[in-house]
């Protein structure tokens, strides 16, 4: 005799409500990770809020444009006291040579698919910094290439101040803050790298992000002799302060 199987009420309720939640979540994920559409825009800012934190994701994975350039993080430092560095080499300031941090980091990863993540630190900073800098105007890009030391604000104003709200529109301010965050990350990384390399005497650092496009497919058998390079430059900045534990992790 066939045994009749009954579905309990809690299971029924869970099945119905759970299915609705699953469908809503997947549709939201599709909207959040998909291309920019009016539908997606209409769901903002709720969509961004929902996917903030542990649900954050993006699946373009080498699309629409594949990764087609080498990205390098270059830096140098001034190894004299800040006041001496501010007056330049003529005042006796000692400057380090330029270092290609990305190349140095990636050297142990060559031919090794199981390399650790330290080999990609500067490259990941480069990627995010470049995107943030690309959203700036030509005038603002000139400002970031200039030197701003001894506490000078890069954009001439503290970005969280009322003055900044008057000077810039809301979208401009959003872009500037996003840039400032990434510049601080880049300068912080350069500071730690410089202190690891040249010791605690580092007072200011200068960073350049360089992109070398991969030789075009059509020229791969006969690559051009001169490799083109694109730069985004951060002028001299004050070295950042870090606590002992952070410094110890880099030594």
């Amino acid at each position: 005799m066939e045994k009749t199987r009954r579905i309990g009420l809690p299971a029924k309720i869970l099945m119905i409500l759970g299915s609705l939640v699953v469908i809503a979540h997947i549709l939201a994920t599709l909207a959040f990770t998909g291309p920019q559409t009016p539908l997606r825009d209409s769901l903002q800012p709720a969509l961004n809020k929902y996917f903030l934190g542990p649900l954050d994701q993006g699946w373009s994975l080498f699309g629409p444009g594949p990764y087609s350039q080498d990205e390098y993080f270059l830096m140098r430092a001034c190894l004299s006291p800040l006041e001496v560095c501010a007056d330049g080499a003529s005042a006796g300031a000692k400057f380090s040579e330029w270092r290609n941090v990305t190349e140095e980091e990636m050297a142990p990863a060559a031919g090794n698919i199981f390399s650790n993540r330290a080999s990609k630190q500067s490259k990941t900073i480069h990627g995010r910094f470049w995107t943030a800098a690309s959203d700036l105007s030509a005038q603002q890009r000139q400002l970031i290439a200039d030197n701003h030391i001894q506490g000078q604000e890069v954009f001439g104003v503290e970005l969280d101040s009322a003055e900044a709200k008057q000077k810039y529109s809301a979208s401009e301010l959003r872009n500037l803050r996003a840039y400032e965050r990434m510049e601080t990350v880049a300068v912080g990384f350069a500071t730690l790298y410089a202190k690891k390399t040249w010791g605690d005497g580092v007072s200011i650092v200068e960073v350049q992000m360089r992109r070398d496009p991969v030789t075009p497919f059509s020229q791969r058998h006969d690559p051009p002799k001169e490799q083109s390079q694109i730069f985004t430059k951060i002028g001299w900045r004050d070295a950042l302060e870090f606590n002992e534990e952070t410094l110890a992790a880099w030594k």
Partner: protein
Amino acid sequence: MEVTNAQAPSIRNWLSNNKNAPAHLVSKIADWFVFNRNADYGLAVMRIASGTFILGWLLINVPVANQVWGPGSAFWDPYRAVLGYKWPLDILRDAGAGFFWGWYSFAILLAVAFILGWRARLITPVFFIFYTAINAQNTAIADGGNYFIRIMLIYMIFADISRRWSLDARRKAIRGSQAANTDTQVGTVLHNLALCLIVAQLCLVYFEAGMYKVQGSMWQNGVAMYYPINSEAYGVFPWLSALLSSNTWVVVLLTYFTVIVQIAFPFLLFNRITRRIALISILGMHIGIAVVMGLPFFSGIMASADAVLVSAGTWIAIGTWLGIKSRALARRIPIVKDHIRPEECADRELAAEPQRVPESEAENREPSLV
């Protein structure tokens, strides 16, 4: 004559014959959700494989962990301040080296427990917290595999991932029939909802990755594959990249294969034969990405989730075959051979006979897979 009229093909007859079809369909779907914890072997393989990849990832990064995710990552603080990770996922932000190393070491132990399927109901959410808190320290350095498994761990919290091939399953088996049927309907529904989320997320990732690619001119021209593998970051073996890029046909076919497989993946799952083609193709793609582009963690994590799409029968056959091979290997190692008594060998020979899934069980499982 009446019989002939009744069978005449017409919309009315079809509707009349199938008037109960919607009710049957709803009933079938409800049964699928309530009476069987589907893809239990697939989820076991996903647990073991993804756990192993996370464990490997944690161990490989031990020499640099303090710098990349520990106090050494403080320079990321302005960036991670806006990422939205709340307590306990941001617990490492101000942590010292001692606390960080304690956390990292415990994450390694949790990975082992996760692989073994030990107290999975408790371990999975704790593992998610430990793993995600480490990643939240430096999300920029994470690859697609880190992102994907973080989301999968959330879904796996609700699934019965230690039902097969685990210490939990072993403990239940030792307790015997008394505790054999402890599955609750609510637990089963949650398990199957989690399975739906896993499969939907998997399909979404492949489909969107393909759709983004198809919009790019380099993918349309069939040369996109050439570029990343010839960059310093993703061309781990320059000689291999050069070999693959030397022939235009190879580049174009690999480029188109990648796009087509990713977009077609969700649609190929509906039929058993095309599902196998999809899984083999996507596995081939992952192996290629792992070796040529040096992304074994990303590829391994993605491939481990694909395991839920493989039927229970296939996994049992693979498990049995692996069991036979490992026992044969063990008998060749003198120290192990000395510890196996002749009667044990005989028992194991018998046990090594390929297991068959009971027909009733197989009937329940096969159609239930996506």
